[in-house]
């Protein structure tokens, strides 16, 4: 049985009669907060928690631990849960449950992560806005939409603004679709980390430090591979990196369109990638992050990106003002004061033990089928001493990855 919990029906009715805009709630609306907490505690599988239009202030993070619950607002600009005065955190909403759907509402100014879904399968996030309203700041919460250790995940038609780490961050998960979202003024717009089988498409990432990232970090439960990044717009991601040092994305240079770090089987195609001032695409290894050390990194961690296939993208501009002294010096040395990096920048780390005739095994190579696009091998292992713009090594193809199929498909 599908049970609808209609919540604060009266204000909804009032709003419908008298105002077009949402009724303003007083700061720290205790009765609202207690009611919502109670609804989350009482939820049963099949419960739908409707939150009517309104701007609600909450003091404490919310949590949900029941399978099969839907949380619904009246729209991402109409139902706003503001955590500006949050005294207990760390998340805005923490979910530890399966078959969870959240849609059509906004979470603003959480002290830590906005929406964290930790362990669970069949997760739908739709039409959710997460925003830190004071613009990009190191003191903003880390992650906006943050499913981690989840299976069968859909994130669509959502907006994330101002995360001090990643706006949309899917970590240690399997079978993922991230589509039609907008990520702006985050350090990382959209990040897929240590995840397997992800499709990231039709998103817009702009004004982040890095637009779309596919990363693998050490010491975690699974290594990520098989991500397709396609039909996205990633442009003008030139916001200074405002992550705290030590955060995974703190090493991302300002002005990065798409970044692959230490991940495998990544396909980047049919995207519009433009005006990202370090480079439109960066391929790098964990060595370039400065975190690699033998004591703290699992011995079986593979820091090299492998099997990267870039084709049929539309590149424009970018590469003209790389971040950091080292990259600036490199750009001037190779391309002159007024020159620019090519669209693809590779740090040049390669697993030398695996080379066959100077090239990685066929399935591990970087293959580029993208017209006359330029590539710079920055020669990171030798401190950028011997950079190369020769593109011969990338003239190959890789088998294309199959599309991700969500099973079961989320309910519309």
């Amino acid at each position, binding site marked *: 049985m599908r049970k609808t919990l209609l919540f604060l029906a009266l204000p909804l009715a009032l709003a419908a009669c008298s105002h077009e805009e949402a009724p303003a709630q007083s700061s720290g609306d205790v009765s609202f907060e*207690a009611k919502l*907490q*109670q609804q*989350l*505690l009482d939820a049963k599988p099949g419960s739908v928690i409707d939150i009517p239009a309104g701007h609600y202030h909450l003091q*404490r*993070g919310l*949590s*949900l*631990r029941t399978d099969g619950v839907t949380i619904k607002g009246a729209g991402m600009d109409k139902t706003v849960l503001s955590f500006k005065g*949050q*005294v*207990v*955190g*760390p998340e805005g909403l*923490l979910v*530890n449950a399966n078959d969870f759907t959240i849609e059509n509402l906004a979470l603003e100014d*959480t*002290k*830590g*992560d906005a929406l964290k879904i*930790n*362990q669970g399968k069949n997760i739908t996030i739709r039409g959710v806005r997460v925003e830190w309203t004071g613009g990009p700041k*190191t*003191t*903003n*919460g*880390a992650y906006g939409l*943050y499913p*981690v*250790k989840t299976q069968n995940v859909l994130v669509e038609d959502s907006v994330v603004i101002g995360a*001090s*780490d990643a706006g949309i*961050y899917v*970590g240690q998960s399997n079978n993922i679709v991230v589509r039609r979202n907008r990520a702006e003024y985050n350090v990382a717009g959209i990040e897929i980390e240590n995840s397997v089988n992800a499709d990231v498409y039709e998103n817009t990432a702009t004004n982040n430090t890095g637009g779309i990232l596919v990363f693998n*970090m*050490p*010491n*975690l*439960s699974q290594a990520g591979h098989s991500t397709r990044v396609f039909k996205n717009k990633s442009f003008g991601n030139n916001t200074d990196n405002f*992550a*705290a*040092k*030590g*955060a*995974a994305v*703190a090493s991302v240079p300002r002005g990065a369109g798409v970044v692959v770090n230490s991940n495998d089987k990544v396909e980047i195609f049919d995207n519009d990638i433009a005006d990202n001032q370090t480079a439109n695409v960066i391929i790098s290894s964990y*060595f370039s*992050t*400065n*975190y*690699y*050390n*033998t*004591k*703290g*990194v*699992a011995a079986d961690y593979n820091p090299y990106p492998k099997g990267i296939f870039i084709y049929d993208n539309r590149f424009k501009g970018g590469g003209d003002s790389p971040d950091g002294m080292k990259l600036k010096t490199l750009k001037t040395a190779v391309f002159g004061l007024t020159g620019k990096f090519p669209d693809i920048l590779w740090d040049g780390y390669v697993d030398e033990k695996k080379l066959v005739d100077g090239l990685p095994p066929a399935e591990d190579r970087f293959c580029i089928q993208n017209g006359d696009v330029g590539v710079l091998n920055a020669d990171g*292992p030798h*401190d950028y001493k011997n950079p190369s713009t020769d593109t011969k090594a990338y003239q190959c193809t890789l088998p294309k990855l199959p599309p991700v199929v969500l099973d079961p498909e989320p309910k519309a």
Partner: protein
Amino acid sequence: MKFLSHFLLLSMLLLLCACQRGMDPVAFQADGRPPKLSDWHVVEVRSGKLVLNEGVVPYDLNTPLFTDYAHKLRTVWMPKGTAAKYDPTDTFDFPVGTVISKTFYYPRTADGKFTDVARTYDSSKDFAGEGLDLAHVHLIETRILVHRESGWAAIPYVWKDDQSDAMLARTGAVIPLTLVDDKSEREDFNYVVPDESQCASCHAQDWVSRKIHPIGPKARHLNRDYHYATGDENELAHLMKVGYLTGAPAPAEAPRNANWADEHAPLDARVRAYLDINCGHCHNPKGAANTTGLTLDVSVPEDRHLGICKPPVAAGRGTGDHLFDIVPGQPEDSILPYRMNSTDPGTMMPELGRSTVHREGVALIKAWIAAQSGGCVAIH
């Protein structure tokens, strides 16, 4: 007629038992959430004292969780004829019907307001164990953990200001208090009673099964002496003696965590006990924090799993501009003490259960990191 006389006799016997303390027998509640703490008849207010009912056994932990300097009165009760089964590592296997209670309270300051509470480790005036003298303490909350057929349930109660009873508070509470130390230094803070769901954040140590369990009643935490009404005795031995525990070895053969504050104990043992109880319920291979690759329970080896030179995964700004969880020899460059030293909800660790900094705990962890050698060298 015969039946009736039996019934009367039984009722009188029950009354006699209960009369010992003027309390009805402990009421195991097989389901639901009684509105008042006193409905359980585990602890109750009698003549200005919070007293324990018949069969309710108090206990303490070698190293307890830090909770904003709150003092705690912990008790366990089991139905007649039932007992918990000993386990050397995990929470004892308690029978259905077990009721565990934990009452959080503070000693009051001399002549202070009711909301002024003492920042002290001295519990000698609390009369903990035999009961609490309400003239000397400010009761905050009592959490009930009850073992039902369906599993353990956590039910929070918040004490009324007149200290007559505690009321069901499923959604928790925020209680403004002021900590006052022995030099009259004052620190305002919000004591936060977790909601039912947040109870599970710590007590569900496996985030896939999501089943909750008590944390404290494990061999390594209980292997210590307690000052019972009948005299000092090892808690494991006492539980065996009263019939609440079976299968425990002699205390010398059982594991024992150090007392974090015992300066005669090895620094390493004190720290590992501290990390175990404050962090290990989430930072274990199955817990909520298993997404981080950082494990802090007492069994983890001293390597990257414990955070040595380990880059953080999802700490966000919780890194405090530091690269690694623990940099041997460099506490000021390490993330662990940085997060312990914060009260910002987006930065602090543990993330629930405290609103103040445990200064002595931070000092302990810093001393431990300072005593390590080696540093962390990044490889390019």
